[in-house]
């Protein structure tokens, strides 16, 4: 029986070239915006979490650059870009 794989373990299989600075940021002041809530459940890499203060926090390591958060939350709350050339995830299979 294949053991269920932890998300961090799955992301650990992928090749990531370090980004100089996060390419996706929650816009200052928008950390408690309800429009960010869907990202908690939809991000395929599980990068969005909520802290004790009720603020949404984004950890950029492991970003698969899929675009889901940009579509679900919108550009008013997210400053969304692709990472610089030659950085971020590099799929070896695709």
């Amino acid at each position, binding site marked *: 029986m294949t053991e269920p794989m932890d998300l961090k373990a799955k992301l650990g299989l992928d090749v990531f070239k370090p980004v100089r600075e996060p390419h996706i940021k929650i816009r200052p002041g928008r950390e408690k915006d309800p429009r960010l809530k869907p990202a908690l*459940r939809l991000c395929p890499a599980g990068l969005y979490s909520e802290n004790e203060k009720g603020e949404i926090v984004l950890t950029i390591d492991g970003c698969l650059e899929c675009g889901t958060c940009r*579509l679900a939350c919108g550009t008013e709350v997210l400053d969304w870009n692709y990472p610089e*050339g*030659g950085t971020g995830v590099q799929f070896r299979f695709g």
Partner: protein
Amino acid sequence: MDKFDVIIVGAGLAGLGAAYTLADHDLEVLVLERGDYPGAKNVTGGRLYINPIRDLFPGLWENAPLERFITHEGVTLMAKERSVTLDYSGNELRQEPLQSYSVLRSKFDRWLAEQVENKGIMVLSKTRVDDVIKENGNVAGVLAGGDELRADVVIACDGVISLLAEKSGLRPPGAPHDYAVGIKEVIALDSGVINERFNLEGTEGTARLFVGEVTKGKFGGGFLYTNRESLSLGIVIGIGDAMDYTLPVEVPLLLEAFKSRPEIAPLIKGGSTVEYSAHVIPEGGFKALGNLCGNGILVAGDAAGLALNIGFTVRGMEYAMASGYFAARAVLKAKETGNFHAETLRVYKRFLEESFVLQDFINFQKSPAVLSNPRFFTHYPELVGNLMKDVYTVPEGPKSRLFPIFRKHMTPGELWAIVKDLKHFSKI
């Protein structure tokens, strides 16, 4: 040289399709790719259908690194505690010309880029395009890594989240209901084991779609494709749908639940996951297509919204390669007059309309609405599953007759609801 004839943004299938077509025409063409190599940022389910694009790229296919040719098409209605599967296989799927192949993008895109480079076109990787350069209402080039690169025309093939299409004013940011997200694992598995488990000979392959409990009743489904030495296994879920109602579980856990299903677990047993990936897919169809051209700019592939869910399959890669081809042909036409305004470049749209690309989009323009019927993802898997459960059950006492079993599930109300659904289905 201070100006290129054409700058292509994105070395995916649309970008490389355009570059391949422009080669041998004595133009200065530059392809820019933000990944370490072409394919580094691309993901497919997936499988490529060759027939519509075979003749657009003659000679390309003999040596293309395709995985398995698909001879089995499966669809599974997945209820909570049971499932019903249909498997189609036909001799025509084993005869040349072979219809479709499973594919892995990193390998395929990289190879295609080599073919483009062999024809003398420069493909520059690790280069992110940050913006278009606009002059007097025309796109005159791109800004990349602080450098201005000028061209008569830009072909934006920068993928489903096309920042260039937005920055050049051709479309607004997408709406969640027009997109789905696919998440996928590539699971390495010995090719002999794959052949045994899936009843395949040689390099035959299978493509399977799963609908219902996979996405907890939300729009989307599961998929499984056999590659030479791996399986592509994943799920797709509509972003708008996942937002509308509270999804009971996080999206990554849906994939784990899918893998644990008794229908799936034995198929992947002994395999090892080698990659985890995710990518957004356009699902809006014809009505969600953005503008295809502007002054000095064309948009192709996913960047133009050119992916189509027609129920039994989801297609995007053929449209990417074909639209790249037609964008290149439009550029060659415009080059004859030296005019790269929207009015001249609009021939691109005409090419697409006359080809399978927009004809498919127009013919299937109702498919987003028809296929988003929640009954496909909740009601029908349970209905068919329960019907089959009762058909196959042999109890301690007498076995009930078959027609009453059928009548029990297919009540007049149910049959009427099915007829209504079929009437909607007639639109695709």
